[in-house]
């Protein structure tokens, strides 16, 4: 087990001082001198044929330097190579209210906005569908010509003998659970700065991206440019949570405007536009059936999921696959049938959001398991313990489980929350609930399969003794650059301050698949260690030459290379570097990481989705107070334990756990996007309510270290796994507090009151029926 001396309490982020002093430059803070201002015109209707789009008057307005429409983009884009059906500006048809249809660049914002007002747009409206059921109706008009029934993708997977499983179960129950659509709501609004040099035909793009490689790829595709003429730089990014994994329309439009204007264009979206750009967690309806033995063992699971996907493909196929795939991997399930339906609707496109695809199905699963345990008189902790996995193992759908710390997570939160002594003994109106969840440490098979390693890190050492790690990984606040610095410093026996990290600039850093599916710690961390080990090998050989001994007898520690067992016979790190540079000059070494094929899931269609090198595991207990007069739910306290394999930076791990739990709380308690005839009714922070400091409880976050055999120092992901267990734990706590079972998220006061009223009505009816007997 690694010691990571000096970092056991964790270290502050290496870019933390930039953030607390205001020096950190986010996209909107970059040098805008000489930049034109970009703006987009958006569709006023939800679904229709564009019959006229006249931009001539806008083009003639003095101060306007470029005007674009969908006709300027010949190539569609999308995050999945198999489902690219979106244009940066609508072509021919609009499919959601707020879809960009035209764009201008002008000398200032006022002129740009005036130009938008001069564009004439006529749309022949078509029937629009705002709910999945409407879009799937037999007589519904197709939103995309090639998709009958407005079905983007259906998935049907069966593993094991489901019928036999239900037949063997002592209790079979089925529930219908609804989860509202939510948004990432990262605090930094979307922005991009593109600079096109007409003399060299080169484009420099700076944007809020989580995956600069996808942006690079799509810029080349949609602008029909040679990839080598594009440079993508990620400045500081003010949060992502999945919003910025896919390339977004405004990024491509800004770049195209810059080329059309032959200069620099800045585009800053309003908060309303940032909400409309969306790509977040879809509204989801889950029909779930579980079979349970009296012994608490799960016998069978049948799950149908319908996701309202919005107007374009985006990540949809992956989201609907994740929803089924990650039914597996948390508990030992002998039989699972999954039917998933991803539906096109005339709402902003959904996409990936923290816990991608897995959160809502996990919610339904945990909620139903809790209710069935109650019916069988089993403790919620006990029923989980009876269904634990034992690593290493493979799930029915061929997901490899290499480490598994759920049992310890359960023990930790059961004890920390005082569950045994307090559950069922709290006064009426107060309650405790618990649930579990898990998530991948990086998708084992990347979307753009090229045969390259999953991660590459370069480490340079030079005459001045400085060590610089180059990574394409996007630090979006999660602390990935700090993780790279720790990995390199630890491997070279140096203090972290001696390692500099240069990240996410395609001109200098190696390609990376970016910040999604919690892949960076596992993949980039391993690549960083690999690079640092290779460098250590070279320095060890050089040191051995200087010390006149065998390299096998040289140890590297504490900033020195010395002969094993003789610490006085050694040289400093800087001396070893100087020795290594003789005849060689500056050294740059490369480290890589590749997920082996056996980690990449089953051979069935869609079988790669959900596959990963390591799953994180979480258990949490939520304590609530419910006001039966107002329906207001207050979260008093949360206890959570996360198995992240090994905490490379415990401070950052705790921060990620707290953030994930809190984000789960927002979804569970209040967050919800709403559309009135397709018009977003939530597109500000006043209408899209998320918890403030006053609504937020203390969170007791504990770290469980199962030491994954393949993780960097044993580490796995820490940012997503704890999110999904919040909502079901909350719903269980509400049931414990006031005896109502909530089937809908979020648990807003009106939904709580409805449930309380329904329960009272049921009780009265029961009383009447009972009185008649």
């Amino acid at each position, binding site marked *: 087990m690694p010691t990571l001396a000096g970092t056991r309490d*964790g270290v*502050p*982020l290496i*870019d*933390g*001082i*930039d*953030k*607390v*002093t*205001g*020096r*950190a*430059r*986010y996209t*909107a*803070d970059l040098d805008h001198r000489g930049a034109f201002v970009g703006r987009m015109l958006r569709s006023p209707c939800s679904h229709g044929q564009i019959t006229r789009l006249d931009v001539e008057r806008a083009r003639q307005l003095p101060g306007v330097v470029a005007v674009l429409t969908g006709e300027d983009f010949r190539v569609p884009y999308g995050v999945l190579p198999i489902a690219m059906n979106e244009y940066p500006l609508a072509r021919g048809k609009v499919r959601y209210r707020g879809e960009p249809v035209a764009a201008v660049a002008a000398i200032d914002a*006022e002129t740009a*906005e*005036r130009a938008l*007002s001069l564009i004439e747009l006529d749309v022949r409206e078509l029937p629009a569908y705002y709910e999945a059921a409407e879009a799937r109706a037999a007589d519904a008009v197709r939103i995309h010509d090639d998709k009958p029934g407005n079905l983007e993708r259906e998935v049907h997977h069966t593993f094991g003998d489901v019928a036999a499983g239900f037949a063997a179960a002592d209790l079979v129950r089925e529930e219908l659970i609804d989860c509202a659509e939510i948004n990432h*709501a*990262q*605090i*930094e*609004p979307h922005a991009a700065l593109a600079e096109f040099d007409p003399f060299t035909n080169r484009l420099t793009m700076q944007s809020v991206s989580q995956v600069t490689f996808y942006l690079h790829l799509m810029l080349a595709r949609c602008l029909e440019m040679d990839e080598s003429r594009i440079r993508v730089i990620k400045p*500081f*990014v*003010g*949060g*992502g*949570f999945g919003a910025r994994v896919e390339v977004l329309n405004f990024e491509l439009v800004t770049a195209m405007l810059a080329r059309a204007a032959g200069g620099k264009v800045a585009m800053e979206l*309003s*908060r*309303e536009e940032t909400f409309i750009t969306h790509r977040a967690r879809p509204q989801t309806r889950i029909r779930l059936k579980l079979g349970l033995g009296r012994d608490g063992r799960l016998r069978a699971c049948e799950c149908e999921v319908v996701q309202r996907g919005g107007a374009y493909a985006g990540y949809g196929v992956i989201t609907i696959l994740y929803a089924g795939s990650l039914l597996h991997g948390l508990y030992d399930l002998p039989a699972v049938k999954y039917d998933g339906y991803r539906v096109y609707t005339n709402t902003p496109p959904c996409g990936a959001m923290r816990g991608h695809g897995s959160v809502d199905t996990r919610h339904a699963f945990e909620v139903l398991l809790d209710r069935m345990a109650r019916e069988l008189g089993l403790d919620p902790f006990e029923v989980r313990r009876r269904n634990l996995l034992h690593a290493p193992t493979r799930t029915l759908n061929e997901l490899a489980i290499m480490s598994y710390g759920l049992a310890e997570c359960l023990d930790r939160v059961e004890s920390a929350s005082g569950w045994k002594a307090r559950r069922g003994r709290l006064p009426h109106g107060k309650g405790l609930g618990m649930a579990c969840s898990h998530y991948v440490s990086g998708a084992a098979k990347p979307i753009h399969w090229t045969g390259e390693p999953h991660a590459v890190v370069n480490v340079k050492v030079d005459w001045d003794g400085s060590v610089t790690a180059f990574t394409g990984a996007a630090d*979006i*606040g*999660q*602390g990935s650059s700090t993780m790279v610095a720790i990995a390199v410093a630890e491997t070279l026996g140096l203090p972290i301050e001696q390692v500099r990290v240069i990240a996410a600039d395609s001109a200098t850093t190696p390609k990376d698949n970016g910040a999604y599916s919690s892949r960076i710690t596992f993949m980039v961390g391993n690549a960083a260690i690999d690079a640092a080990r290779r460098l250590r090998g070279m320095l060890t050989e050089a040191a051995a030459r200087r010390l006149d001994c065998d390299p096998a007898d040289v140890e590297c520690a504490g900033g020195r290379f010395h002969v094993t067992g003789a610490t006085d016979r050694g040289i400093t790190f800087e001396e070893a570097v100087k020795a290594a540079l003789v005849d060689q000059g500056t050294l740059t070494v490369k480290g890589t990481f590749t997920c082996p094929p056996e980690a990449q899931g089953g051979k069935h269609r869609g079988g790669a989705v959900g596959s990963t090198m390591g799953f994180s595991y979480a258990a949490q207990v939520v304590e609530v107070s419910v006001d039966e007069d107002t329906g207001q739910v207050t979260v008093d306290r949360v206890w959570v334990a996360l198995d992240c394999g090994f905490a490379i930076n415990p*401070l*950052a791990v*705790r*921060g990620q756990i*707290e*953030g994930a*739990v*809190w*984000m789960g*709380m927002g979804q569970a308690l209040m967050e919800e996007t709403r559309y009135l005839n397709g018009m977003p009714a939530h597109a*500000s*922070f*006043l209408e899209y309510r*998320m918890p*403030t*400091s*006053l609504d*937020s409880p*203390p*969170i007791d*976050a504990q770290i469980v270290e199962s030491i994954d055999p393949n993780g960097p120092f044993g580490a796995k992901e820490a940012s997503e796994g704890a999110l999904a267990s919040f909502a079901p734990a909350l719903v269980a706590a509400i049931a414990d507090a006031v005896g109502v079972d909530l089937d809908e998220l979020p648990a807003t006061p009106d939904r709580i009151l409805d449930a309380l009223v329904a329960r009272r009505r049921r009780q009265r009816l029961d009383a009447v029926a009972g009185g008649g007997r």
Partner: protein
Amino acid sequence: MFDPGPIPGKRLLRIRLNGRWREDAVADDQLLVDYLRDTAGLTGTKTGCDGGECGACTVLVDDEPIPSCLTLAARCEGRSVETIEGLAAGGRLHRLQQAFHEKLGAQCGFCTPGMIMAAEGLLRRQPDPSEAEIRAALAGNLCRCTGYVKIVESVRAAAAADA
């Protein structure tokens, strides 16, 4: 037809910005946040919403935390305006900056300048705040990363540290 309306007048604004007096010509309708970012070049103050929703633009005007996106620059005539850039002095971080850095009060960092300025406003009027007072003082500053756990810890630690 779009009507640009009358061209706004300009006036000479004299303010004390991070301790230094300065004069700039500003439009009557210029927001303080735009003055700080575009005229004074102090981009530490952020815009996170369409007006008064998120607190990322919080600065101190005569020691009071205010949203600079809802304040006209012209209203600050003759007053003291402090931004995140003015806190560190003499080569030392301000105690709130030190605490937010060490305790991970900042993750993505976008809300951080506004959060720190709101906390500084609190500490100036209440040097030893309770947790409830800290949470109340920061209720207008949204953070999406931390769940506020380490933000509250950071403010407590700063309050406990020597000023």
